[in-house]
């Protein structure tokens, strides 16, 4: 589709900037979109590029959130350092758990990733004196970004701050996926056996990819903690992992910008459906997922291709 380099990225950035002026009342909501985009991007690196299906990505997000939250409460309210702390915590957990997770695949990997998340949640619940437990970690006060831009009531600073972080992380991910590491991850996804045969250290490549993804997920969590100024146990919720997966497949995995589109569609549908008819919005989401799986298996981005396929199939109807 895109022949102009970075056309998709330029369009998305333009939309994000335009959103600031078009939806001046909804900056807080769009900032949550941005946080979720970052989180789903980190999942895309793992699932879309390296082909690892996990249901425990919230472990990395949540750990980033708690690390950044605790750092802000006890050490410093500087946002950027907080992000670095979140990234470090996410990467550390991803590396440690990745040593185990990357040895398995399929259902076993799904289960192991869920178990890691549940253990993290239970630890956060148990360490109530540190994390606030079920009441949430409070007392997070943020200093101005770069010492200049104060976080304001309607969330303007929060919006630009989150957008800048997402753009920076997107660039890092883009570079990573074009690098030899990203290319070998794709190779592993297509055929791990062949990659072993050509001498690629498959296991360590996967651990590296997972660790990078952990850092990005940690930044997403840290961003959420800084914007909300509260961290609750729900950062480790199974729902968060599952919804991220749904959003990614909805948009189309393995393209980065598919993650952006998936999040925007899912969260918009959720927001509108929840406002119109909260009791039944789950039905709408369920139907949406089913129709994507059956009608456009490669995600919303696959729609143009699916339509042209349909026409071609119509023409070749005689063929078996």
């Amino acid at each position, binding site marked *: 589709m895109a022949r102009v380099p970075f056309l998709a990225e330029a369009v998305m950035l333009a939309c994000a900037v335009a959103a600031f002026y078009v939806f001046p009342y909804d900056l807080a909501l769009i900032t949550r979109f941005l946080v979720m985009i970052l989180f789903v991007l980190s999942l895309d690196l793992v*699932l879309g590029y390296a082909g690892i*299906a996990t249901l425990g990505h919230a472990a990395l997000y949540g750990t980033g959130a708690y690390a950044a939250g605790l750092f802000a409460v006890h050490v410093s309210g500087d946002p950027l350092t907080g992000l670095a702390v979140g990234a470090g915590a996410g990467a550390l957990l991803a590396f440690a758990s990745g040593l*185990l997770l990357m*040895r*398995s*695949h*399929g*259902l*076993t990997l*799904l*289960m*192991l990733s*869920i*178990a*890691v998340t*549940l*253990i993290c949640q*239970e*630890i956060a619940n*148990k360490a109530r004196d540190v994390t606030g437990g079920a009441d949430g970690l409070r007392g997070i006060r943020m200093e101005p970004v770069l010492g200049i831009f104060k976080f304001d009531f309607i969330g303007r600073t929060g919006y630009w701050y989150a957008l800048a972080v997402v753009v920076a992380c997107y660039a890092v991910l883009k570079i990573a996926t074009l690098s030899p590491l990203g290319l070998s991850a794709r190779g592993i996804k297509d055929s791990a056996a062949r990659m072993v045969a050509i001498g690629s250290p498959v296991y360590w490549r996967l651990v590296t990819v997972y660790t990078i993804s952990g850092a990005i997920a940690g930044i997403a969590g840290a961003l959420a903690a800084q914007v909300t100024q509260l961290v609750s146990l729900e950062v480790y919720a*199974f*729902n968060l992992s*599952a919804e991220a*997966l*749904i959003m990614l*497949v909805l948009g189309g995995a393995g393209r980065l910008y598919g993650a952006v589109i998936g999040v925007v569609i899912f969260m918009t549908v959720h927001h509108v459906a929840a406002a119109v008819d909260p*009791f*039944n*919005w*789950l*039905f709408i*989401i*369920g*139907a*949406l*997922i*089913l129709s*994507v*799986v*059956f009608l456009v*298996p490669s995600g919303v981005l696959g729609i143009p291709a699916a339509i042209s396929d349909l026409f071609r199939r119509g023409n070749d109807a005689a063929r078996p």
Partner: protein
Amino acid sequence: MSLLLNIAVDGIAYGMILFMISVGLSVTMGLMRVINLAHGAFALVGGALAHTITLRWGIGYYVAVPLAIAGTIALALLSERVLFRRIYRLGELQQVLATIGITFMVIAVVNRLLGSSLLSIPLPASLQHSLDLGFRVLPAHRLVVILAGIAVIIGLVLTLDRSRFGTRLRASVDNRNIASSLGINTDRIYAATFCLGAGLAALGGILGSELLPIDAYYPLRYMVLFLIVVSVGGMGSISGSFAAALALGVLETASRYLIPDAGTIVFFALVMALLAFRPAGLLGKGMT
């Protein structure tokens, strides 16, 4: 000594409940190789039907339970024709998503029709008393679950390992094309197995509801529990699920008795360790 006895009695009783609520999933996911996250949805349908039939229509428990299971199977047959038969052929990830989507829709429908409070299925008076074991008491319905669990495992082993149906099913799962070219009606075999799984899910949901009560969010609340039993047991192995359910039941019960404070963490750490050393589960037959 009495502590050990307690752990054994409660562990086995709980393990049997774990087996009953997840055996339907061992059938659809373990035998048919479909990542069926909609398992809990069928248990919910069974439980909701049993609730409606007993409490709202006033029909007795022993009639209501078979009716509810039959209703669930009818619904499963319908959904197999319309939906699930298309899902078998999809990739793993697509299966995860499609069955989550179905689960969401079932939850929304039950929530709409029956609300989000607990849907109790009152036991008949004959099951409400407790049995005296000498050193303690055991509720009668737990004994029913233990007996039902033993009956189900024997029945399944006989059906799947010994009968013609079982041979055909395994042939169909291993290589559908060759099986159908040998004259096996694979469509019908799949549909029958799927309905068996759904029926067992309904039975498990109803029998387990004294411990894991039915409400609209049942499928999501206990999804992780079902998945643990099947993955620890190993794909493709009903006896593996049986062993895993008992082992997990005893393990969890022991951790509650001995180290209640760190129980949850220790439990999941042990599950992780087991899966790390035996990725195919206790009695798994290698990776798919």
